[in-house]
């Protein structure tokens, strides 16, 4: 029941919003709906926390033996929580933004929420694919319609990239379908993988590569990231927030749910290659980020670096590392949300995102600065912030993993990016918030109440998780252990 509600609430709201003309009404309805889904999610994690409420399994396409099968296990709960938690924040945080055809904007936003939630809950490959695309299409429209100057070309690139990836994923799913004896069920996939695990079979390799491609594009993994900075830059801020905070997690989630347990042999065999790519990507993204002048691009590249670390932890696995990935998915989501909110606030106020044009904001907007600093520190994973927990566990996991002989090298290289991350983040803070006031920032006002509220919530969450991460860790411990069990370790 909970999964159905989670999907139907945003879906119906989204469709209904197309009919509502007034901007504020639409915005309010969207906000209320997102709150409602958060409430449902929280209820699902507390009072309805039993199998009867958390799973839903109905006949769908008889000819294909495909089912409406949703299940909320720990990982799904975590990500759904992230989604449902983020959406009210996003809507509320950008309350001040004005949109043409706002009803459509929020309608599409809600539709993409439905898609995202579906992705995180589906236990049927075809269904997964469906929601995967459902999350994408509204965002495409969102970005193309309300984005920046070069929005049409850029978002189209983004769309083509992800569409290509998802088509490859579809092929992989079809192959798995036949392999699993005409079944799309995740459980059957996994069962087949466990019973017929044969490393080196070309088919398994093909499946692995295709799935990997789809997820790599989505996360994005170097060298499939080229769409990402452009798109983050050109999309409206709410879209960017969804893209980076939640959609990037789709890829990570996909790896954990649909790749690692499903093609364990290939994962084991080619894990090192992917891990290497991830590390290279992290370094690359960090270096590029240091060069950036545009706030959005900077955050975008930093996101690539963070995601790279998660990928590394997945392909050089250990229990601790996987747990780290789980919690980091959540953390990165809310952290980057915070970053974007600040960027949005700055852009709304100054009409520019250039670091070089800004400066000295702290003098005029101390609240914003404090909140930002906390978020930024979380982003460079200072202890006591949530990210520290995740990254520490991941490093720990990578170092302790027996899966790869290069784990130490990976860990060192990844550690380097943390330092680099600290460099560019702090430099950004320094340049933007401190230093001299210039003509543009002379009249800086304090950030709006909406943003303050949202940022405060985020900061609270950062600190709470940073200090007491146990609830989240227990939530995912079973899943992490299961995934680890299904992997082939030395």
């Amino acid at each position: 029941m909970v999964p159905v509600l989670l999907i139907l609430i945003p879906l119906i709201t989204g469709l209904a919003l197309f009919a509502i003309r007034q901007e504020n009404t639409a915005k309010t309805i969207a906000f209320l709906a997102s709150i409602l889904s958060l409430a449902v999610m929280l209820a699902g994690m507390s009072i309805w926390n039993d199998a009867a409420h958390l799973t839903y399994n109905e006949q769908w396409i008889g000819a294909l033996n495909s089912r409406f099968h949703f299940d909320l296990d720990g990982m799904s709960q975590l990500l759904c929580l992230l989604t449902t938690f983020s959406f009210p924040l996003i809507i509320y945080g950008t309350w001040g933004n004005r949109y043409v055809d706002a009803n459509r904007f929020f309608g599409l936003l809600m539709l993409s929420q439905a898609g995202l939630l579906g992705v995180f809950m589906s236990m049927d490959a075809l269904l997964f694919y469906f929601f995967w695309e459902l999350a994408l299409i509204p965002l495409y429209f969102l970005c193309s319609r309300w984005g920046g100057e070069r929005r049409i070309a850029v978002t189209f690139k983004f769309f083509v990239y992800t569409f290509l990836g998802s088509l490859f994923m579809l092929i992989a799913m079809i192959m798995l379908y036949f392999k699993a004896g005409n079944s799309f069920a995740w459980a059957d996939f996994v069962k087949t993988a466990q019973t017929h695990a044969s490393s080196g079979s070309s088919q398994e390799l093909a499946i692995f590569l295709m799935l990997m491609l789809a997820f790599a594009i989505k996360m994005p993994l170097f060298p499939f990231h080229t769409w990402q900075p452009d798109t983050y830059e050109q999309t409206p801020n709410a879209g960017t927030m969804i893209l980076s905070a939640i959609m990037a997690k789709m890829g990570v989630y996909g790896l954990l749910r649909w790749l690692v347990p499903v093609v364990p042999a290939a994962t084991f065999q080619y894990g090192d290659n992917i891990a290497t790519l991830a590390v290279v990507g992290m370094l690359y993204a960090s270096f590029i980020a240091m060069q950036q002048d545009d706030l959005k691009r900077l955050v975008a590249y930093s996101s690539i670096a963070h995601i790279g670390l998660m990928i590394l932890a997945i392909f050089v696995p250990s229990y601790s590392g996987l747990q780290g990935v789980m919690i980091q998915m959540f953390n990165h989501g809310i952290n980057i949300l915070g970053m974007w909110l600040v960027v949005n606030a700055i852009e709304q106020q100054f009409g520019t995102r250039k670091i070089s044009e800004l400066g000295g904001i702290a003098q005029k907007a101390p609240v914003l600065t404090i909140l930002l600093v906390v978020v930024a520190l979380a982003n460079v994973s200072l202890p006591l912030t949530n990210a520290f927990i995740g990254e520490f566990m991941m490093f720990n996991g990578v170092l302790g993993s027996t899966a790869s002989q290069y784990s130490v090298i990976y860990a060192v290289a990844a550690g380097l990016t943390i330092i680099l991350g600290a460099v560019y983040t702090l430099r950004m803070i320094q340049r933007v918030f401190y230093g001299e006031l210039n003509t543009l920032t002379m009249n800086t006002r304090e950030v709006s109440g909406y943003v303050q509220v949202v940022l405060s919530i985020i900061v609270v969450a950062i600190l709470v998780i940073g200090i007491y991460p146990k609830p989240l860790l227990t939530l995912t411990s079973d899943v992490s252990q299961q995934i680890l069990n299904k992997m082939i370790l030395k």
Partner: protein
Amino acid sequence: MNAIILSAILGVVLMFSGIMFKNGNTVRNIAIAGMLILLFANLAEMKGYHFFDINTKNLLSFTRFGLLFNSIAIGATLMYMLVSSRDIVNVGINVAEYFALIFFVLCGIAVITAFQSLLMLFLGIEIVSIPLYILTGADKRNLKSNEAALKYFLMGSFSTGIMLMGIVLVYGAKATFNIELMGADVNPGRNAWYLSGLLLLLISMAFKVSAAPFHFWTPDVYDGAPTVFTSFMATIVKAGVFIGFVRLFEGTFANSGYQWQLILAIITAATLFIGNVTAVFQQSVKRMLAYSSIAQAGFMLFALFSFNSLSREGIILYSLGYCLATVGIFAVLIRMKDYTFEGFNGLARSQPVLAATTTIFLLSLAGIPLTIGFFAKYFMLASAIKNGAHLWLVFFAILCAVVSVYYYFRVIQAMYFRDGHAAIEPTTPGFRWILVFMAALVILLGIFPNLVLQYLYF
């Protein structure tokens, strides 16, 4: 049999209705009513009610597959008439004749879907082709229409010649025209005849469904024909011929080993490639749709490439999705003043309903999930994967599908993201409602393809 006989009769009725009623709209209403009758009759036959007790002497066999497709064709034509019949009335003065010809085409499609003997296939294809030649040239004053008709006619009859030679050689080897009996091996010494015949048949059918490298007539013809008939030709008829294609080679190719698969794979790949790549460079939406129809044919060729239950389901869904979507897009296109992509700029602002439905149709053509187009492509790819041979083709198809997104989304981009004042003729609420209905159908079947597929098996 219901559909064959009734469509012929209704065609004649419409011919005479032109004499009785001078008003085009009356004729149009009769045609729509006739189409409803036809649909009802065919559905009745699917349920097992045969209105006519005729011994077909094993020349026709009414399988569930054929009947289902027939229903789809008739249903799609009904939709087509509902959205475009006003434009048919505007093509020329011979309104009743146009409608009659459409009914005759449906008769031909009914024959093609049910043929059991090559003779019936031949007749069916001709019954489909000849009215189309005429419809292509219906706009007599228009030089482009004339040229298209001539070109279509010459190409069509040329391929008929090739097809006949193929049939003859096959007959020489197998001593029968019956596609079921053809499976049996009669005389191994004559296998070369058989194979040559099949090859010629393949070429000619490739001509008819405009598969590369025999596609070159298609864009010109589709472009030149009156748009409203292009819509009919490119969708229902093409799908109908495809069904014939599939039925023909089900019994022959599948039995004659897999040496065909490579040829088919090459044809499919070429079709996909040429259709998609050329469509990218088009400036006119009409021409883009013509090339996209070639590209879509490439996907439909998967049904031939791999004969299994998935491919049958796939071709059914593909036909349905393709027909609905393309008919819908064409219905909007006809009303546009400017057929180029720029002509669509800003359509979403002035005509939100049209833009939204067109978007859904385009998404369906591109094969985005939640539309029937996705399942169509899904089944095709799945059948090829299940078949197992020549997997490179699947990847090639995916790449082409991605390319296709480019030109389909150009229209969407023009409608939604670019500013402009799309010049469009006024539309009636009824027209919009039908479009919405079609779009809803596209989505509904995109979520529950079983609503159609179950009829293959009940």
